[in-house]
């Protein structure tokens, strides 16, 4: 029998108040083992205070080939940014 441990993606919160961020991936038989392995592989130097693991097969990703059409609608909407609005310099606190 081959090693068919599924692949897991690991997300780590580096300190309270920050988001969990993708740290990498690893193989494990189940979620408990994935968390224990993630601690050993990705937090040997206090890199984290919280770990999320999710089996890689559950992640759905956008297709990079469609990036153009997917993000294009945001391209010409500069009015969504505060710098689009021309206001006099004497206006303070805005």
């Amino acid at each position, binding site marked *: 029998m081959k*090693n068919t441990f599924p692949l897991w993606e690991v997300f780590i919160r580096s300190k309270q108040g920050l988001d969990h961020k993708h740290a*990498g991936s690893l*193989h494990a038989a*189940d979620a408990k083992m994935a968390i224990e392995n993630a601690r050993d*592989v990705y937090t040997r130097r206090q890199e984290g205070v919280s770990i999320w693991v999710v089996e890689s097969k559950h992640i759905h990703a956008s297709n990079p080939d469609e990036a153009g059409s997917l993000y294009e609608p945001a391209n010409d909407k500069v009015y969504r940014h505060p710098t689009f609005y021309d206001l006099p310099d004497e206006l303070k606190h805005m």
Partner: protein
Amino acid sequence: MPSEEVIFQDKVDREIRIEPKDWMPADYRKTLIRQISQHAHSEIVGMLPEGHWITRAPTLKRKATLIAKVQDEAGHGLYLYAAAETLGITRDEMVDQLHAGKAKYSSIFNYPTLTWADIGAIGWLVDGAAIMNQVPLTRTSYGPYARAMVRICKEESFHQRQGFEILLVLSRGSKEQKAMCQDAINRWWWPSVMMFGPNDESSPHTAQSMKWKVKRFTNDELRQRFIDICADQVKVLGMQLPDPDLKWNEETQHYDFGPINWEEFWQVVNGNGPCNKERMTARIKAHEEGQWVREAALAFAGKMSSRAGVRG
């Protein structure tokens, strides 16, 4: 519409990282799989020569440090295997290639660690050469590889410093300790210099790898930089590098160095180094003896999830 190949090269030229699902030339994928898996294997096999000294480290502090270092190497192997897996090869395939002798690993780990000073020399020279190679790889064009290298480089710096410190202590010790220090440097110097691989003119893939920005500097450029740095660092130890031709060249602003024994290099690459067989035997044994653990873990996970299924 420009071809996919043109779009790809344009991204590379503009320093836009290539990510796993992006289109890439088949040869780029193949080159990366080869390079990253070799790199991963080197980290894993590299645990063996050092692991050898864990039970014999001279103090508790040194033992704790060495365990931490060897554990780091395991971690580095795992980061790199994971990066290679994003290119479509499985962990099993890579492990099989290593055990079947089809995949290479760094030849340096086919040399034995005869004395405690060797652990110092490995940290200073072998990890030093590895860092020289790895720092430019943090900017390599393939995203997952570059990210793995960032993490690895942060950790390698401790490896090199602890190694130099081991030698520094020995270099200030008794006559015997000084001799042990010099002997380790003598044995590890040339194999470390060879870690950068063949000369540029005998390295057929360099040009393509530079164009793809998989590599950022040639073997000879990195080797020269390593020699320049070590030639100065060895003075702090009051020791000598075993090269009678090593001499500062005012004109080139680099150290000149003596001829490299490429015959030895190829002998070790091709399986005839002092420890090639021992290393592979140890890896295969560890893998085979761990088989029941992997099977038990999978059986347990299967049982737990089917129970959860019944309850749900």
